[in-house]
């Protein structure tokens, strides 16, 4: 299986993902982008930027584990994962993920599974920042009132 995992501060283009994931007998490619939304923060200010921090080396190691689980569940040709660290403005993509497979259902299933697992174990943390410079750490499944 062809794999590419990067945790980086440099944005990429959807074409890079697409070109990487399509191999000779690939019949389905799926590319997901996670984009920063202008959500309302707890203090009712709007998110202007999200700042991501993380442990790159461990993140790659966790992604490798997830890739092994995916290989045992889905027939796929390739995985591409690129997550930004640092500040990402509203409307900008923070994560690009692509999967190539013979069949659509495997590509969809693998990509969905990958993102579910990323949100459980891959050490990346995000802080919402408003135009007025208020900050709010996003902590899933936790009462995040300060």
């Amino acid at each position, binding site marked *: 299986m062809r794999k590419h995992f990067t945790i980086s501060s440099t944005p990429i283009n959807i074409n890079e993902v697409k070109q990487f994931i399509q191999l000779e007998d690939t019949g389905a490619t799926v590319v997901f982008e996670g984009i920063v939304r202008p959500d309302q923060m707890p203090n009712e200010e709007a998110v202007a930027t999200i700042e991501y921090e993380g442990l790159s080396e*461990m*993140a790659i190691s966790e992604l490798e584990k997830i890739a092994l689980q995916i290989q045992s569940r889905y027939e796929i040709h390739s995985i591409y994962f690129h997550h930004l660290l640092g500040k990402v403005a509203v409307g900008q993509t923070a994560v690009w993920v692509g999967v190539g497979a013979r069949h659509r259902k495997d590509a969809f299933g693998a990509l969905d599974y990958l993102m579910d697992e990323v*949100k*459980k174990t*891959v*050490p990346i*943390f*995000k802080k919402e920042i408003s135009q007025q410079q208020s900050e709010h*750490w996003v902590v899933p499944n*936790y009462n995040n009132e300060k």
Partner: protein
Amino acid sequence: MPFGILKDSLGQDWFQWEHEAPATVKDLREWLKQFPNIHPQLPIAVVFDQAYQPDSFEIKDGMQLYLMPPVSGG
């Protein structure tokens, strides 16, 4: 080294933990309860050597550990 919201809760990038040997991840979790800025419901993962460590993991002198709140990437 604390990560994410924990860094703000603890107010510092890193700290040293002194404990009579032997100590485990569970002991460390107990010790963290003294910090009033850490919400008691916040799950904290302890990472050593690029991997999550269970409560039973034995912490040895000089180990550099990471304290992690729930991840929120993607």
